[in-house]
């Protein structure tokens, strides 16, 4: 048994009492904080007077907007001068009260402490609202540098929207960003989303050297087709599709006729039917279109948008419908429908003469239930599609 002197016992008892008091006070502060009212939070501040708490002060700022500046000042001056979040809140509060100079200083302080995206983004927004172009571009570029590889393209849209509102010309806008190359896909996405296809085209053409950009360019080519902008679509398609270049004036208007590559279902490539009762299957050099008999009575099985010059074309193709007869298949160009393709149990060549049209048109393999028959069931294999100019003598 160790003999403990009376004074030592007193010291130990004192220490225990102090610890118990501190624990009690801390617990009471916690309870007060959880009550989340101005009075209870003020009580929490009082209880924590020896170690004031940033969270309590900021919460008080939320509950007392008129005094938020004071609470945030206390945070950044006495509690946590390295709280970038508090500096940002303080800066925005100053801005809301019209104190632009103080706001700029506070927001700049946040960028000094925290070299991540949020302070730079906040300062860029501040300079935008203040109409200070040079400073805006500097901090917008900084924000892009800090985020371009981390944020989804769509999440860069707010920043691009600010930049676009200051400078709508794509070339001039991108010139402000040292990391323009990395920003382009997001910017292209933004422009497409805003429906500004001409501006998007400008940006896209700067991206053709980068093969990883191909999906973006093909998407834009598809949208240009939908918008009827044939030349723009063709320019992008030739630069990004990886298929042989199309050249309508030279009579090259069909893509992927040899079916060596799986149809992309967009742009100037083949689009396969996605309908109940139709099962299109691609294998290199060949398409097999299966009709279950439950397909719609009239539908498109296969389609390609072609950009035609005003010249006569003939589509030639090889097909095989197998042993079972297949009725109701025809080629069409827009509303002009060719004759029915006769069933053939062996590989056979057939053709379809396109009507004389110019511009963007839809070349389709269509099915229509023949009158007096049930919906057909079977399949057709197709390969070796060629769309050739027809010589005058030949026609």
């Amino acid at each position: 048994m160790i003999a403990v002197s009376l004074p030592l016992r007193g010291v130990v008892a004192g220490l225990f009492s102090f610890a118990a008091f501190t624990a009690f006070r801390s617990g009471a502060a916690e309870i007060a904080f959880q009550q989340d009212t101005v009075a209870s939070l003020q009580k929490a501040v009082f209880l924590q007077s020896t170690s004031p708490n940033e969270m309590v002060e900021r919460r008080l700022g939320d509950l007392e907007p008129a005094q938020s500046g004071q609470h945030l000042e206390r945070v950044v001056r006495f509690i946590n001068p390295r709280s970038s979040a508090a500096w940002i809140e303080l800066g925005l509060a100053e801005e809301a009260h019209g104190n632009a100079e103080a706001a700029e200083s506070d927001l700049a302080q946040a960028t000094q402490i925290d070299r991540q995206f949020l302070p730079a983004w906040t300062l860029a927004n501040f300079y935008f609202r203040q109409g200070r172009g040079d400073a805006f571009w500097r901090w917008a570029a900084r924000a892009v540098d800090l985020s371009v590889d981390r944020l989804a393209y769509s999440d860069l849209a707010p920043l691009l929207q600010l930049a676009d509102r200051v400078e709508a010309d794509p070339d001039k806008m991108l010139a402000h960003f040292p990391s323009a190359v990395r920003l382009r896909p997001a910017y292209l996405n933004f422009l497409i989303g805003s429906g500004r296809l001409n501006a998007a085209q400008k940006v896209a053409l700067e991206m053709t050297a980068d093969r990883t950009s191909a999906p973006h360019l093909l998407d834009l080519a598809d949208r240009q087709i939908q918008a009827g902008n044939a030349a723009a679509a063709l320019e992008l398609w030739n630069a990004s599709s990886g298929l042989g270049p199309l050249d309508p004036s030279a009579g090259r208007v069909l893509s992927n006729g040899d079916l060596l590559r799986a149809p992309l279902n967009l742009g100037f490539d083949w689009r396969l039917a996605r309908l109940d009762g139709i099962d299109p299957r691609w294998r290199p050099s060949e398409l097999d279109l299966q009709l279950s008999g439950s397909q719609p009575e009239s539908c498109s099985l296969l389609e390609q948008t072609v950009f035609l010059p005003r010249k006569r074309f003939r589509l030639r193709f090889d097909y095989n419908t197998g042993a079972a007869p297949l009725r109701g298949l025809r080629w069409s160009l827009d509303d002009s429908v060719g004759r029915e393709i006769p069933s053939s149990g062996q590989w056979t060549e057939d053709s379809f003469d396109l009507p004389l049209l110019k511009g963007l048109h839809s070349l389709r393999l269509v099915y229509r239930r023949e009158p007096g028959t049930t919906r057909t069931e079977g399949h057709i294999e197709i390969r070796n599609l060629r769309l050739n100019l027809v010589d005058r003598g030949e026609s």
Partner: protein
Amino acid sequence: MRLHTVEATVAAMMSVILTLAAVDGSATRALAAAPAIGTVVAKGTFRLDRATVTGNATLFEGTTVETAAAGARMELSSGAKVSLSIESRAKFYGDHMVLERGQGELEKAATVRFEAQGLTFQPETGNASARVALTGGARVELAVLGGSFRVLNAKGTLVANAGAGRSLEFEPQSTQGPTKMTGTLRQASGHFLLTDETTKITAELAASGLAKDEGYRVEITGAQDPTATPVTDASQYVRVTAIKRLGNSRDAAGGAAAAGRGGAATAGGTHLTATTIAIIGGVAVAATVGGLAAGGKLPGQGSSATISR
């Protein structure tokens, strides 16, 4: 002759310029785009149009703000402040915002109004503050925290006046049904007037035999006549088709007692339940107790975090 040539040249140049401008949408965009209408600040992430944003952003005309786990606070250039609760969505304009989901609070609104479910909540004073919430179905709840608000239906008809401390629930009806109001019938300068107890809307009533109910608390059913002009004190002119006396006493106290006995009445075609329901301008209105007004703060504006040590 020469003048005509100059005019023709200028006209040709103008058409070329306009044609070129029309070729690309960007060319028609003014470089000095419309200015920002305010800022949005959140302690967390929110959606700005379709983009995810952390912290804060600049608001423009037509921007949609959508909150998730954290509420957001908007400071508009007009001086108005708007809070959006968690899981809420609103579209912002310089002079109004359209609440599409959840709950919002408008502070210091002078020139800014709330819209929800086709209703407009129009502040009458510069310091007016209110909470507005979509409470399910087509219902909208309004709790006036300060100042006063006028509530208009989609056609601009006044359907309620709400002062500080009032909490009302609105449900636009699918069809413009009859008008239903409750209050004490009074006569002024030969005109019969009734101020609805719930909506505080005063209507001039037209019907034969109203005089016998003067001074009594009554419930009237009728049709609003937009072609008739009510007297100065009234905002509606209602042709009464049915009138029901709710108390036996002519004094107001008797009426109030009768109101207390009204119980949970249900208006035809509406799901609102309260002691008294008014239907004005095709909108059912009921006073609510507690609800938004009882909340000391917007949900989601609070923090559930514990004190760090």
